[in-house]
């Protein structure tokens, strides 16, 4: 029996080995190397001196980095909640069995499966002040045209709106999976008790998809903190750093200015932020589950 277990163990290890090999090589090792680099002034060349916490201290006085943290937080806050609400509404509205609903689902999914680079280019043209469709609509409706991505106050909201539009399909598909898992008998019981559709939505559907909501909250939060492509393509972080994000700053410092040590410190801070948010979410999730179940 003991031999049997050992053989099973070996088989199990072999089965999970490819994942761990990949995870170690491409996630753990880079994180460790990055952590070490964050205490150096590594510049991709010959310089790699240990400078202690100087990079970390400097981060707290670096206006560009602090602005990027603020922008990232705003971006995440104004992306995640609307995404969850609109994604849920989309899922509820296309849940069911019919060709029209399948087509509607596909329409929601299209932006999500399209590359962010392609989407960014398309929205860049739509936001264009002279020939863009948004200004044409505004002028047609009798409003003054806007400069969208060239307006310091509008540029970040423009990126947030595009992000919501693009990722609504992802949230919808996850919620659809959650909706499919709710037993039909609960709705039948609700009907028998004379509950309205709204009552059933808020008393049955919403509480039962809460684990799904928690999953979506965590994943969209992490994704928001990793925002980069659309910033790089549509605004380059401007105007005047109004759209620069943490990852954009990391990229600029690392590949634009070769300051790998400093960029490594930034990425460690990002790692800590994401880890902290995930931990907080999990704690809250556990407490919530403990109370409701």
């Amino acid at each position, binding site marked *: 029996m003991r031999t049997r277990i050992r053989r099973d163990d070996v088989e199990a290890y072999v089965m999970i080995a490819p994942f761990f090999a990949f995870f170690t090589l491409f996630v753990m090792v880079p994180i460790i190397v990055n952590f070490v680099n964050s205490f150096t002034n590594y510049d*991709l*060349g010959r310089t790699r001196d240990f400078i202690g916490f100087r990079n970390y201290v400097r981060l707290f006085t670096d206006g560009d980095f602090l602005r990027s943290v603020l922008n990232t937080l705003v971006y995440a806050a104004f992306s995640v909640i609307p995404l969850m609400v609109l994604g849920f509404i989309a899922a509820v509205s296309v849940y069911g069995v019919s060709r029209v609903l399948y087509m509607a689902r596909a329409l929601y999914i299209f932006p999500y499966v399209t590359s962010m680079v392609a989407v960014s280019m398309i929205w860049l043209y739509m936001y264009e002040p002279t020939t863009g469709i948004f200004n044409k609509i505004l002028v047609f409706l009798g409003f003054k045209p806007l400069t969208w991505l060239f307006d310091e106050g509008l540029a970040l909201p423009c990126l947030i709106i595009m992000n919501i539009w693009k990722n609504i399909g992802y949230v919808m598909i996850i919620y659809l999976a959650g909706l499919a898992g709710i037993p039909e008998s609960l709705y039948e019981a609700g009907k028998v008790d004379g509950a309205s559709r709204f009552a059933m939505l808020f008393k049955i559907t919403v509480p039962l998809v809460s684990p799904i909501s928690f999953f979506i909250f965590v994943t969209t939060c992490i994704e928001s903190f990793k925002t980069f492509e659309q910033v790089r393509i549509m605004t380059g*972080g401007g105007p005047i750093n109004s759209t620069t994000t943490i990852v954009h700053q990391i990229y600029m410092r690392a590949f634009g200015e*070769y300051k790998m040590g400093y960029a490594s410190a930034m990425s460690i801070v990002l790692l800590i932020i994401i880890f902290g948010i995930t931990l907080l979410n999990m704690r809250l999730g556990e407490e919530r589950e403990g109370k409701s179940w």
Partner: protein
Amino acid sequence: METRLEMKKVREGIVNGIKIKFANRLMSILMLKKILSASLATIMILAILASLVVFSSCSIISGSNDKDEVTLNLLRLGNDMPEAEYWKSLIKEFESKNPGIKINYDDAAIGEPMETKLNTLFAGGAGPDIIGHGIISVANRVEAGHYQPITDYFSKWEGKDDIMESVLANGTYKGEVYGLAYSTTPFVFAYRKDMFKEAGLDPEKPPKTWDELRDYARLLTVKEEDRITRAGFAFPMAAGNFVEFDVFVFGNGGRFVDDNGMPTINTPEKAEAFEFLKSFIDEVNIPYNSNEVNPFIKGNAAMTLINNVALRPMLEDPDLKDKVAIAVPPYNKIKATFSGCNMLFMGSGCKYRDEAWKFMEFALTKEQVLERSKSLNIPITRKSLVEEFAKLDPYNSVRAECVEVGIGMPRTTWSPRFQTLRNEMVQKVLYSKLSIEEALNEAQNKLMEEIGQ
């Protein structure tokens, strides 16, 4: 009783049957697991072997000598098709004339893609033997140990006295020659002749001074109520690299670096350039960023400052024949413009220096310089070809003049940081976020702090 016994036998038979089936299923699952495990283990071993092969091939990437053939790797800045085709044909010609040398060609898009690719190659110990890169790379990559000096080869080169001084200076650092220019990309002043005629301006007389530029821009701007539908003068407002601002600074006699290699951002020349731009740009401009197409290319602007190469498709468009012209940018004190410069460098890991130099020498012969001008409209880099170049295209004399008065990025280790800070500074002034004086001082102080660190 018999019936009971029969029933018992039947039951036992069923149970045995189930047991056998279960055992068989278990066996088949175990077999499947074994097969799966074996497959995964094989895949892993193959993956490890494959990575070993890749790593071992990487280690010989930088220059290899297979029997009597030397292989060199070339990485060029820019991935535009016409230039890539040109380099491939040049390599073919070189290889046919030098049977023992093989050149592997590769390229990367301008900006971060090139930097990322090059950094990754050097970090992996597989830096290219020959690198085609710009001015901004010189100081940083020399200090990082990525380039090696070619002064010894240059001093014996037949073309050493023929190369334009301004062009040679771009590849020289701390008294050593590291790079030799194969192409220059000056910013030219482009304007629409047809729009000049419409506005009652002489299409053969583009603005020469700042005041003329402002007046012409106002005349050429088309508005629908408050909305500018055609820019009189297109100037970038966000993202990208604001070398267009440098053109005004240089034209006002300013520089960003002094003789000691220190930054000179907060000087009167820059303040005046800002004051000039602020005096009219909001009235005449359609904002754009460098990731977008310049409104001039889209036909939405009458004048702009633009990279000579980026303008080429427009000049070659038959529909725009005789409608687009170029000139030296308008200036205030000194005729000057920004000019990028791409050079050939020798990688620090290059083992076959003689062969690499042979290729560089071949790419810089008069014939090849002229060929690049003919096929790619690239301004020449050798003094003896000025006249011949001018005859090739009516605008070549303008291009040559722009190269001659062209000034590049500062060749310092702080150039990349300067670029970021300059871009921020220009935006802060154009968006009235800071006063001109505050923005200039802020950029200067930040850069000094960086250098101090």
